[in-house]
């Protein structure tokens, strides 16, 4: 469904992403992990059209979407959320979601009605008339998700929807994301919360310093020495092995 081939991006002298390849197949939850500054969000921004890549291509549903504007990519059915949530603060929750719904629905009434349905999917049905500016962080994250869902995407890119949430809130959000996948939306997510990555994803990519260093089933990937070292520093894998751990 999504195919990224040999994509590169440099900012001045900094190589943000180098020759990254990945593919996301339909109906799956695929995750992208890596330490801070690895280039994950940059990669997302290139896929969704917010940043132009220096070279390489992005294929979505057999269409080349490399370098296309974000609104066009969204209309094709690929939508992203932002790591730093971007609610329309002076609008209500319902109006926020309706903006997403308008991508497919012209009528105002129908869009507002659809917004209420989508709110139910993410457990926001009780907050429809609340101002988005008054929401808690957990609420804003859900709203970000709901707005993206309202555009009726085929592929959803989630940039750290769990970040900043407490354990209970994460626990509540997991089934929501699974539910979205079960409704037929493919999901590609960036996540730091390992609990979420492990329990949600079917397949995982690991990015470090702009280079894809590992991929595979989540449990295999997280026990790979290369990945442990990327997170914990050189020699960490050996130390953990000596301690008889391996359950990092």
């Amino acid at each position: 469904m999504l195919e990224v081939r040999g994509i590169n991006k440099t900012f001045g002298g900094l190589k943000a992403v180098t020759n990254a390849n990945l593919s996301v197949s339909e109906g799956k939850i695929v995750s992208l992990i890596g330490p801070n500054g690895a280039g994950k969000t940059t990669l997302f921004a290139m896929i969704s059209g917010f940043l132009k890549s220096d070279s390489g291509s992005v294929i979505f549903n057999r269409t080349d979407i490399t370098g296309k504007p974000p609104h066009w990519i969204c209309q094709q059915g690929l939508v992203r959320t932002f790591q730093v949530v971007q609610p329309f603060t002076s609008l209500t929750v319902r109006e926020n979601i309706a903006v997403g719904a308008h991508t497919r629905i012209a009528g105002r009434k129908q869009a507002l009605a659809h917004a209420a349905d989508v709110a139910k999917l993410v457990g926001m049905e009780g907050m429809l008339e609340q101002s988005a500016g008054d929401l808690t962080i957990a609420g804003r994250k859900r709203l970000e998700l709901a707005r993206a869902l309202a555009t009726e995407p085929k592929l959803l890119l989630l940039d750290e929807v769990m970040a900043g949430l407490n354990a209970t809130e994460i626990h509540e959000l997991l089934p929501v994301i699974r539910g979205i996948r079960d409704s037929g939306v493919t999901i590609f997510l960036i996540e730091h919360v390992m609990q979420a990555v492990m329990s949600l994803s079917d397949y995982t990519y690991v990015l470090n310093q702009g280079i894809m260093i590992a991929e595979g089933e989540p449990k295999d990937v997280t026990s790979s020495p290369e990945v442990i070292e990327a997170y914990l520093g050189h020699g960490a894998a050996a130390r953990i092995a000596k301690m008889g751990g391996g359950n990092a």
Partner: protein
Amino acid sequence: MNERTRLFGWILLLVTLAVVPLFLHSARWIDFLEMTLFVAVLGQGWNILAGYGGQYSFGHALFFGTGAYIQALLQVKFGFSPWFAMWFAISGGALVGAFVGYLSFRYGLRGSYFALITLAFAEAFLVLSRSLKSITEGGQGVQLSLNQDPEQAIATFQFNFAGPFLSEYGFYYTIFIILLLAYGLTAWMERSRFGAQLVAVRENEDAAKALGINAFKVKMGAICLSAGITATCGVYYVQKFLFIEPGIAFGPAKSVEALFAPIIGGLGTVLGPLLGSLFIHGVGEMTKATIGQALGGRPGVDLILFGIILILVLAFLPRGLVGLLEAIWKRLTGGRNA
């Protein structure tokens, strides 16, 4: 405030505006109301782009002047009927809007940069209209020939020598109808997909783009609509005063007038510009009649007061008079219908 109360309030307000002049037989008061409605329309034009779209123009005189000059010149130089010329004037204004919008939005100008570029264009047109004497008659301005034949009053769109009713109320009801159209259009926009997308762009352009909104296209639509309404004010001005000159057309006074009413009244609301205009003109007249008189009829006292009011509104009423009214309404109804 629910939909029904709101609709009832609107009907009450519009019926009042339609009926009140019939009880006023003083030309001075009818003139006062005309100018109030004129600024209310001018303000709504600005409000569509700035209040709903978040693109703060500081040069709306550009569109007003373009509309006014096209309306005047087509009649004087080419003998067009005013009813025919006005379509060129309105679309000419919208076209200038599209031109400025294309240049600004293509290159992502926002905030103060956009304000400055609109001001620069208005100033450029001011200089051009003064110096291109062969086309615009330069600084002396363009004068429409006065029609004194009552039979031709409607054909020439000049009501000064028309029958008893038209000569007294013609221009009042003209601006009233323009107001109905402009406000109806704004109310429709507020409830449409276009309006929702425009507000989304104002709130957060990146988020809007991510949700499939072509921000460039939406902003272009807003500036054309805004400029078209503002140009209509130019048409009205020329027909009423039969005269236009560069300073009135493109000077900063009209740009300031256009933004003053909606900021005081309430940005991004349909009612805001009208409420703001009523307030400004009401207070202006009152100051002139009281403090101004006491100071020996010196002009400018109202302007000082406007400055103070503007500061107070910006400091304490970020949502303008509309926000204040909503808060009062909420308190009166105990928040039940809020």
